[in-house]
C-alpha cells in the first residue's frame, strides 16, 4: 500500500550530494534523494533502460564527480538532476521515475506514494 514514509531530516542532505534509501532491503536502494541548487529531488533507484537495474556504483554514489548529473553506473547513462531526463547513454530521452517528497515544519523529509517495502 502506498504511504508516507519518513526518510531523514532535510539537514542531513548536503548541497551537491545524494543519498539512497533501502531500509527494507540493505544493499539495494529503493529510491534516492539529491539536493541540487537548494532543492530536493527524489527518484526510484531504477534505470529506465533496463527495469530493475540499480544505479549507484557504491552506496550513495548517484552523481558524477562535480555533482551536476545523476549517473547510472550500469552503463554510464547521465540524467538531469532537476528533471530526471536522460541526456546521454542507453536510455536517451527517457526519464527516471520521480518520487514526490514532503518536508514538514520540523524539516523531516517524507517520500509519498511509494510501496511499503521502503518502510523506515
Amino acid at each position: 500500500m502506498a504511504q508516507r514514509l519518513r526518510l531523514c531530516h532535510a539537514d542531513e542532505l548536503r548541497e551537491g550530494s545524494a543519498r539512497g534509501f533501502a531500509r527494507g532491503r540493505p544493499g539495494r536502494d529503493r529510491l534516492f534523494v539529491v539536493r541540487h541548487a537548494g532543492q530536493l529531488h527524489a527518484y526510484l533507484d531504477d534505470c529506465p533502460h533496463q527495469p530493475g537495474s540499480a544505479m549507484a556504483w557504491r552506496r550513495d554514489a548517484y552523481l558524477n564527480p562535480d555533482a551536476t548529473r545523476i549517473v547510472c553506473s550500469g552503463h554510464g547513462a547521465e540524467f538531469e538532476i532537476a528533471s530526471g531526463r536522460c541526456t546521454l547513454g542507453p536510455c536517451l530521452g527517457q526519464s527516471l521515475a520521480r518520487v514526490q517528497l514532503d518536508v514538514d515544519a520540523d524539516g523531516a523529509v517524507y517520500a509519498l506514494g511509494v510501496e511499503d517495502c521502503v518502510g523506515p
Partner: protein
Amino acid sequence: MNIIGPDELHFGVADVAGCEQFLTDYGLLPKGQGRFEALDGTAVVVKHADDAGLPRKTLETANMLRKTVYGVANGEALRAIHDELARDREVKRLPDGSLESVDDLGFVLGFKVTQRRPIGLPAERINAPGDLNRPVNATAAAASGPNPQPTPRTLSHVVYFVPDAARAEAFYVQRLGFRLVDRFIGMGPFLRPAGTIEHHTLFLIETPPQMQGCEHFTFHMGGPAEVFTAGWNLASKGYQSYWGPGRHRFGSNWFWYFNSPFGCHIEYDADMDLHDDRWVPREVPAETDMSQIFLFDWRTKWAPGGPPPKME
C-alpha cells in the same frame, strides 16, 4: 592470427580517484600511473577522460572504454595483424612497439606481443569423496572474519554493446581469426581468438546505437569460492551488486557482476569451459534461463531478529 586474448583495457573516466579505489577494492594490484594488474600482468589502465595519453574518443556515447589491447603470441603474429588490417585502414605503430587501429564498429584496438607472466598457482582445491585435492590440515575458510580479498588471476573477457553484431562478428572472425564458440540468437556471438581455448574472450550484444560501448569486463579468479569471497567482500564495502553470484550456462563460468564507476559492469568469474576447433557452436534464443544455470542473490540480513547487518 595468434591472438591470445585481451591483455589491457584502457579507460578514460570522470572520477579517477573513485575508479582507482574501486579497482583496489576489487582486488587488482596497483602498479602506479593508473595501471592495475592481475597476477599474470594483464591489466586495467585508468586515466582521466581528457588525458592526452589516451586514444581519441571514437564513440559519442556514454562509453568510457578507450582501447582494448590484445596480447599476441609473437612478432610474427603482430606482423600478420599489421598486414591484414593495413589493407583497408590506418595501423599506427606506437613507441612501445604495439599496434593501434580501429575495428569496423569504431572500437579502438591495440596489439602487442603478450607479456603475461606464468601464474604458478593451483586452481582452488576442493575435496570430494573419491578425489581429495586440498591438503590435510589446510583450511579453506578463515577461522573468523572474512576471507582476505583474493587477487584476480587474469583478464578473462570483454563484452561490447554493438549496433550491428553480424558486422562486428565478421570483422573479428574474418580479419582477426576469432572463432565462433556459441551464439545467443537475436543477441550475439561468443568469440575466442585462435591463441586460446577459453570459451570466450569477446561477447557481442546487439543494441541500439546510443548504447554502443563496453557492457562489462571480467577477471578470472582461482575458483568459485574466490568469486563468492571477492564479491562478498566488495558488497560489504558498499559496492552495488548487479547480477549474481550465479553460474552461466554457456561457458559454465561462475559469475558475479557489480556496477562500477567505469560506465559499465565489472564481473568476477571462474572455471570457464575450454573448447578447441572440434567444438560445434550451440545457437539458442537469448532467454534468461539460457544465461544463468542458477543465480543467488546477495543480502546482508536473511531473517528477522538478531543485530542489524554490519556494513563498513
